[in-house]
């Protein structure tokens, strides 16, 4: 990014919000090839809720799908349990799913219009993820990056059915063929993940544009490095763009306020 692009990025494509428990920093960019940014994101810090959506369907349709998804969780009632929250999120996403399919039928002659989705839910000390497609949730704990979601992709289906091994899957092309997305098929099933949340955890929600452009090692090093959460987000986006970023890139960092100001100071191992 040159200076002008960086200024524009900081003004319109980078956002930070804080609650008592978490700081959220979201960044999005259309990438170096695409003319449109069809990704979407949303966070609700006080509700401990965040999502990233990656729209698909070509000219403006993907953007419509991801926007519908983002808006679907805007107005939430109060909940008494995590289960109730998850049920409500699924119901709202299902409503958006039907709207997307109706939109596709009305405007695009039933052409596939949809969006992948990953939702992060904080119910400390428990957390949960709901997702469909290949948008991901990562967690960095003890300086180690863990993928918390599992892509709904052809390759993973083949691994599950024992047709290929995980090693063979890495060598194959076509890993980006997804088998689930909101709006894509008549029925929608989202997967649920349950995990523990600790105060020192750092969470990353992202579209495939990030992890296809930046290696896990770089994501881990940049996100868990020094500097404010904004600085690290800019560095991560620059790394993605420098690597080509053929797809839209969207990610969100979520971490405790104590780390959001200066980042993480790692002690050098003593020899």
């Amino acid at each position, binding site marked *: 990014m040159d200076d002008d692009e960086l200024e524009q990025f900081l003004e319109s494509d980078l956002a930070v919000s804080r609650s008592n428990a978490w700081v959220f920093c979201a960044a999005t960019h259309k990438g170096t090839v695409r003319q449109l940014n069809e990704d979407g994101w949303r966070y609700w810090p006080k509700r401990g809720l965040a999502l990233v959506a990656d729209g698909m369907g070509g000219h403006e349709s993907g953007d419509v799908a991801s926007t519908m998804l983002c808006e679907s969780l805007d107005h939430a009632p109060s909940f008494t349990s*995590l*289960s109730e929250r998850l049920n409500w999120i699924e119901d709202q996403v299902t409503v958006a799913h039907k709207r997307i399919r109706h939109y596709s039928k009305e405007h695009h002659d039933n052409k596939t219009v949809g969006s992948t989705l990953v939702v992060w839910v904080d119910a400390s*000390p428990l957390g949960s993820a709901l997702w469909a497609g290949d948008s991901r949730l990562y967690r960095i704990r003890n300086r180690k990056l863990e993928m918390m979601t599992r892509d709904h992709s052809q390759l993973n289906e*083949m691994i599950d059915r024992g047709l290929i091994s995980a090693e063979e899957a890495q060598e194959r092309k076509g890993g980006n063929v997804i088998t689930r997305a909101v709006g894509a098929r008549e029925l929608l*099933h989202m*997967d*649920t993940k*349950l995990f*523990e949340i600790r105060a020192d955890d750092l969470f990353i929600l992202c579209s495939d544009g990030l992890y296809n452009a930046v290696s896990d090692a770089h994501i881990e090093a940049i996100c868990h490095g020094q500097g404010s959460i904004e600085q690290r987000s800019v560095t991560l986006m620059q790394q993605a763009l420098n690597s080509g970023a053929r797809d839209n890139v969207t990610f969100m960092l979520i971490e405790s306020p104590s780390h959001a100001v200066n980042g993480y100071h790692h002690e050098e191992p003593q020899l």
Partner: protein
Amino acid sequence: MTRVQVDDMQIIKVDFALTRLCRAYANERISKALYRRQRAELISYVQIPQSPFPDLVLNEYSQAIDDVFVPEETSAIDDLGFSDDWLNESSPTRIQTYDSRQGQFFNDSDSLGAEFDPELRENSIYNFSILSLLDRYYWAVLAVFLGIMTTLFLIV
């Protein structure tokens, strides 16, 4: 009442069960209502002290029509190299029809479903009965038939 700390082993156990539950739901082996109820039970198991681990049902329809079910060859736990009694999934599997198939890949149970067709079986039994009767009374039928033909010939 929510615990301050979460037990790592409980999380691993619940995560594994939840993965199986999500797969059963995605493959339409359980209804949305049952999926949600069991997910809530798993969450309660982690959150509420002394909660027992729930007995999960991953093949809801197996209780409804016994005749159209076949047992799974191996349990889900064994499939993944685990073997424990906390998640019993050895109940029968519903035979899926082609209409209920999800995703782009064939479900293992489809091949079983393709072999079984109650209507075909009923037709086969019916056809078998007719053929048996014809076989047994072949000469009698032939004699009657020839008699009728001869009578008609003589009249004409």
